């Protein structure tokens, strides 16, 4: 029964919408290789020759699903598609992400792990680059201490001095809100919410394709209701991807 459901779904999917209009490009290299699935290990089952017109149906990571005039569908690497030409004779502006894409990224998302004032901390963040040098970032951090754990939202502005470099250092300042929850084993302490201000520096390193590594240090000032503000150091390492 289950197998039949899968089969019906698979068959149904094979009949891709014929009435939709797709981008068409012409093969100018001697041939392009079409694979059965999006992945470098999958078998090449068909070759589209020079002069053949292919429709570009969809993209998954670095693979593009194409259909030729005979209706044969297969997956071609984006770098090979980048060598085909459009109706004006221009090569398509398609390639797998590289250092240049890293320099010109608009969005980045990542996960970081590290030490916040001697406790384990986890961060997820998103960044939007509105110029090549400047970006806005929003980060959610949770840290886990012996006496309390906390959650923090931080908005920051990030400046990178050398956007073209593989090793790209940055400076950041920001502000946010922190909620501290004392451990349930401690008695008569209440949750508290404070504003924070932060300053920091770090480096992003382009690894490969869309992936990058990120190290950062931040110094937080927690504006408490008590007489003294708290000052906290944070070290983080993370992995991010850009778009």
């Amino acid at each position: 029964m289950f197998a039949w459901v899968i089969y019906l779904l698979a068959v149904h999917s094979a009949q891709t919408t014929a009435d939709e209009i797709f981008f068409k490009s012409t093969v100018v290299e001697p041939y392009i290789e079409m694979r059965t699935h999006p992945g470098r290990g999958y078998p090449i089952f068909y070759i589209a020759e020079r002069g053949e017109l292919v429709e570009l149906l969809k993209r998954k990571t670095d693979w593009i699903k194409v259909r030729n005039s005979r209706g044969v569908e297969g997956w071609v690497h984006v770098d090979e598609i980048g060598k085909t030409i459009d109706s004006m004779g221009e090569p398509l502006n398609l390639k797998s992400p590289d250092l240049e894409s890293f320099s010109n990224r608009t969005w980045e998302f990542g996960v970081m792990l590290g030490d916040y004032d001697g406790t384990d901390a986890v961060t997820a963040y998103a960044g939007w680059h509105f110029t090549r040098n400047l970006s806005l970032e929003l980060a959610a951090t949770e840290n886990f201490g012996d006496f309390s754990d906390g959650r923090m939202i931080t908005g920051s502005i990030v400046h990178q001095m050398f956007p073209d470099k593989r090793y790209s250092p940055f400076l950041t300042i920001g502000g946010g809100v922190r909620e501290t929850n004392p451990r349930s084993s401690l008695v008569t302490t209440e949750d508290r919410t404070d504003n924070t201000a932060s300053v920091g520096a770090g480096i992003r390193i382009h690894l490969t394709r869309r992936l990058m590594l990120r190290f950062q240090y931040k110094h937080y000032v927690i504006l408490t209701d008590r007489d003294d503000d708290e000052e906290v150091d944070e070290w983080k390492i993370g992995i991010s991807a850009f778009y």
Partner: protein
Amino acid sequence: MENWNKRLLLGAALYAFAGSSLADEQPEQVQVINPEIDRREITTDAIDTEDFEIGAYVGILSIQDFDSEVVYGVRAAWHVTEDFFFEANYGVSEGDLTSFEKLSGGAPLFGDEDRDYSFYDLNLGWNALPGEVFLFGKRALKSDLYFVAGVGSTEFLGDNWFTVTVGAGYRLILNDWLTWRIDVRDHIFDRDTFGTDDTTNNIELSTGITIFF
């Protein structure tokens, strides 16, 4: 002379043909450009990318020192390359009585609210063993055996615990956008609820459906 005749005949025929065809085309000449045809300018930006995966799952969570319970969750993934993906999960379950509470028959150690178990994790996944599955000898479906590792938080027994998650899973891509997944995850965290710091392993077996978009 013969040539002249030929030319004359050809010329007349040509004139007649051209004349007739001109006469035929005359009324259509008004419509040289058909305004009904809209030029479809499609750019490569219009190519649909399907790198995101979202879905839900159900399974069994074995909570250390407690029972195995049903767990429900949602997950989202971003496939960054054909090899690596980022994944976020959120799941909820509930701890039953501990063995001690069952055996002693006394008052329960924890309130019902404290027994609510919820977690999130942020993982990096690696499609280690991509493959193909053959169905009825007619169709070949893509599959991936992957490993994940990440960090996150578990809320249980009234506190939040820093949690490391490791696991493996299998994804069968039924068509271009629908997948079926089976996952095994170990959520590891240190818990000091019983007085000493104990490292707990909470193993989750689950199955679910995700869609690519």
